[in-house]
């Protein structure tokens, strides 16, 4: 399937129906997930704030998943110099930054009632914040270099440097945390999640993934159209 999509025309034909289809799937899954979510009983400790989890956890998962997509697309763009891979990398970055920001904001809103504070310098929170900065750096670099092809390659190199660094950042922050504070407000390993929560959570994760797929395809299509328009404009001038 991937081989076939390398051809931009075939990609455009495929994404034309795949993008709306994924969007509909995302809406259906999200609706089902939210219905199940609101039928679930309030948590015995967290009360109704547990509902934030169904928005927050998928966003946090997507923030890393999208960076992996960005890394793979950047690698393909650097090695094979394929225009679609370049467009895919460029299109993924703002979406990833959006998911990361959503995870940070909903996490903060969730932290206030449950932990009693908007923000803790906990390893997970800190590394998600650094991930957000990676996205910002990527987008800033891509926007700042004037030559578009050069900007794309420079940004791809940065994405790969970031891909190597993200695990190191994560483990260094975990190590830092174990040095600085022994007790954490967040105790992992509470009771395993009951099915009433797990089912809507999984539905929401799949909804987010489908939604990301739809938006990503739309943005790549936009990128392809933009380039075609630029080529037409150049021809008209020449």
């Amino acid at each position, binding site marked *: 399937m991937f081989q076939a999509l390398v051809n931009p025309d075939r990609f455009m034909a495929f994404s034309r129906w795949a993008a709306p289809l994924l969007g509909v799937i995302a809406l259906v899954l999200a609706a089902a997930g939210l219905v199940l979510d609101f039928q679930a009983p309030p948590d015995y400790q967290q009360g109704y704030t547990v509902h934030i989890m169904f928005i927050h956890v998928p966003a946090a998962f997507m923030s890393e998943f999208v960076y992996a997509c960005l890394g793979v697309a950047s690698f393909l763009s650097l090695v094979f110099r394929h225009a679609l891979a370049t467009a895919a990398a460029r299109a993924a970055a703002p979406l990833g930054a959006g998911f990361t920001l959503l995870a940070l904001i909903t996490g903060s809103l969730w932290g206030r009632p449950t932990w009693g504070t908007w923000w803790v310098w906990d390893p997970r929170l800190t590394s998600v914040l650094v991930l957000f900065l990676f996205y910002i750096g990527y987008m800033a670099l891509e926007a700042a270099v004037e030559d578009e092809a050069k900007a794309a390659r*420079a940004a791809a*190199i940065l994405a790969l440097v970031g891909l190597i660094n993200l695990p190191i950042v994560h483990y260094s922050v975990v190590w830092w945390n174990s040095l600085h504070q022994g007790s954490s407000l967040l105790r992992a390993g509470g009771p395993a999640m009951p099915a009433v929560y797990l089912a809507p959570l999984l539905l929401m994760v799949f909804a987010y993934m489908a939604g990301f797929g739809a938006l990503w395809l739309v943005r790549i299509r936009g990128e392809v159209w933009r380039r075609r328009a630029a080529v037409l404009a150049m021809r008209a001038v020449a």
Partner: protein
Amino acid sequence: MSGLALIFRRELALSWAGGGGPFLALGFYIAMASLLPLALGADPARMASVAPGFAWLVLALASLLSLERMFERDFEDGALDLIALGPAPLEMTALAKGLAQWIAIAAPLALLAPLIVTALGAPMRLAPIVVICGLVGGLSFCFLGGVGAALSLGSRRGGVLIALIVLPLFTPPVIFGAGAIEAFGVGLDWRTPLLLLSAYSLAAVALCPFAMAAAARNAIS
């Protein structure tokens, strides 16, 4: 190899030419340190508790200052094109540039750091570990910074852009360096964070020249 030595000597000479070598970074370091008591209040106990971490963080920031000159000048006057055409691979040139940056900027900063830490009220006995962390971590700062400098070639917003790209990459060395200094201060195991810092720096020295060369090639293509 002699070509590499030539480039290395050229870079060292250039870092002193028209800009005063490390004095810009050193001046920034001293100025930032003198602002700390103004912001926090001059209570010695309070300053002493934050001095090592603050001095380490500002050292990282000060090493950002002269990154812009690492590639930009050669890029603008065309020297980078000539170097790329020459027999030495661009990766070697990037390595030489990183090492020259380390000797010209990071080493003076590392030597100044114990003075700053002590002046801010931390105990004198921290001095050796601060110098060692400054020298070892300086390798990371110079080589990661070099990647940022090479990537931002051809943009019109060099300095701030480099900082934005590079600072998230500084997370591990900042953590390990501060951890080593703090552990040394309270008598805990400081070797582990220092070894982690060394490992990160060595990996940066090994890998960053490839990223720098790829970025430089992209800019001059």
